[in-house]
């Protein structure tokens, strides 16, 4: 099963939930950090990295001897990554998405492709948990190619937990796509609720069933619970507002390691998700 953990709003506790869930399961589990802009799973799990691979996207390389400066490449490029002026082809690699249209469509076969590094994928272990993370190079804009590369390492024989970046745009869609279930972590504030509703719409657009974890629960604000009832999305877990939990996190200690009594809660959460996914599959077939 592939389970992604997203939120809309940042800092609601995605990584806390992802790491504690992975540790509670312990075996036959893979954790993928797809928040490639700011990956934090490693801060909590402290994995041993055994391999690091560069992530490259193919960008055009012009063979001047063959180029006839016809301008076709610039015409087909949707991202304005190529421009032809008289006897000169300008390539703007940072705009290139690596689609390959220019090299395929060049009438003179003057375009080959070369890799441009934009990040790394690191593989390792934290105990028996298999760990994969993507890291976007500082100054690079496009996160999706790195996320895509991280997801190539999915082992379908294991339980796969994907930690997603905040927001609702392309990196989130790329990370959650293909998941069997998406857990949305939120907090009881107007910001938490607003961004949760955006995240729910995003997950629905991708067609994945979802459930909610309410972090820092307690207090007077009940609108997140009301929203869950209204849109009929299960509220699967509450983690209370507790300074001790916040302090554990601040030191990079996972919830289940700092407070082992939470392990059973996370296992129960996982079993509930398994049931929902099984029911969802039945409905679809």
């Amino acid at each position, binding site marked *: 099963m592939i389970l992604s953990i997203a939120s*809309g*709003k*940042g*800092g*609601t506790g995605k*990584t806390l939930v992802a790491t504690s869930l992975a540790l509670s399961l312990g075996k036959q589990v893979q954790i993928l950090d797809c*928040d490639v*802009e*700011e990956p*934090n799973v490693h*801060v*909590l799990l402290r994995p041993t990295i055994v391999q690091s691979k560069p992530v490259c996207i193919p960008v055009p390389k012009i063979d001047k001897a063959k180029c006839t400066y016809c301008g076709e490449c610039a015409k*087909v490029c*949707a*991202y304005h990554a190529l421009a032809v002026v008289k006897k000169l082809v300008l390539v703007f690699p940072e705009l290139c*998405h*690596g*689609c*390959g*249209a220019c090299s*395929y*469509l060049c009438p003179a076969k003057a375009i080959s492709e070369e890799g441009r590094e934009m990040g790394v994928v690191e593989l390792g272990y934290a105990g028996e948990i298999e760990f994969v993370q993507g890291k*976007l190079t*500082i*100054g*690079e*804009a*496009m*996160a999706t190619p790195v996320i895509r590369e991280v997801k190539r390492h999915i082992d379908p024989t294991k339980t796969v937990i994907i930690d997603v*970046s*905040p*927001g*609702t*745009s*392309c*990196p*989130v*869609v790329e990370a959650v*796509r293909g998941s069997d279930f998406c857990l949305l972590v939120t907090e009881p*504030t*107007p*910001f938490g609720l*607003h*961004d949760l509703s*955006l*995240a729910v*719409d*995003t997950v629905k*657009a*991708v067609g994945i069933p979802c459930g909610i974890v309410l972090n820092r629960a307690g*207090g*007077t*604000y009940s609108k997140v619970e009301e929203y869950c009832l209204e849109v009929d999305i299960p509220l699967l877990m509450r983690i209370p507002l507790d*300074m001790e939990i*916040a*302090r554990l*996190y*601040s*030191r*990079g200690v996972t919830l289940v390691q700092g407070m082992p009594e939470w392990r059973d809660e996370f296992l129960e959460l996982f079993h509930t998700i398994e049931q929902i996914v099984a029911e969802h599959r039945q409905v679809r077939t």
Partner: protein
Amino acid sequence: MKEIVVLSGKGGTGKTTIVASLAALAKNKVLCDCDVDAADLHLLLKPKAKETHEFRSGQTAIIDEKLCTRCSLCEEVCRFEAIKDLKVDLTACEGCGFCAHVCPENAITMKENLAGHWFVSDTKYGPLVHARLGIAQENSGKLVNVVRQNARKIAEKEKADYIITDGPPGIGCPVISSLSGANLVLLVTEPTLSALHDLERVIGVCRHFGVPPLVCINKYDLNEENTHRIGSFCQEQAIEVISRIPFDKLVTEALVNSMPVVEYSQTGVANHIETMWHRVHKSLGKE
């Protein structure tokens, strides 16, 4: 006119709380929300929209089933796995148009996306330019550019002293679009190991694009050892820590009441933010 962008790397450290308070404290400014895919500033500033504009950007492939001969060439050339069984996955299509160019039957056309909306609004604190990216849309960086350009136009017209911008989390395309060319980045962090790790990366981005950063440690008393660690790191980097704001339940209370915290209360945290604003103001004067 000076442009201040509030960023953090890690999400949820208090960017919007700080920006809403600066909105109440700073005089003669234009406000700007560049967190276009999970914008929250409007929840505190309660804007009245004056103008609504469509944001059209990017394209999506559409296959005409009547013309399609099921040759599958489109599926073969697409590197984004956006065409499966001759159906376009709208959330996977990056709009490159490769498929449309190679289709021997000309059965594929590219349609421009309505990728979101942007707004110019009035708030009691001054004009606000903000946006809403469509669900699961791309090109958030381009929408950020549109928002910033329009904030600048208004600021120039109204001879504003400041543009105060709420930025997105992360370090990728919308962050780069939010900070490039700004006068100052205010980084809001918290004393957690995750936030410190993320702070290092976002400082890297500030350096890369040549925008000077200042640091504010929010909820500093949550872990004073980490606060000290962040302080030492910033000292090594020659970055000033201009504020250490204590944890205070008033912040969440103000938020639940949809108010900037400096308006909700005049004590404690509010004083810290006010002092910070004076320091930001002074730091901009030095440039």
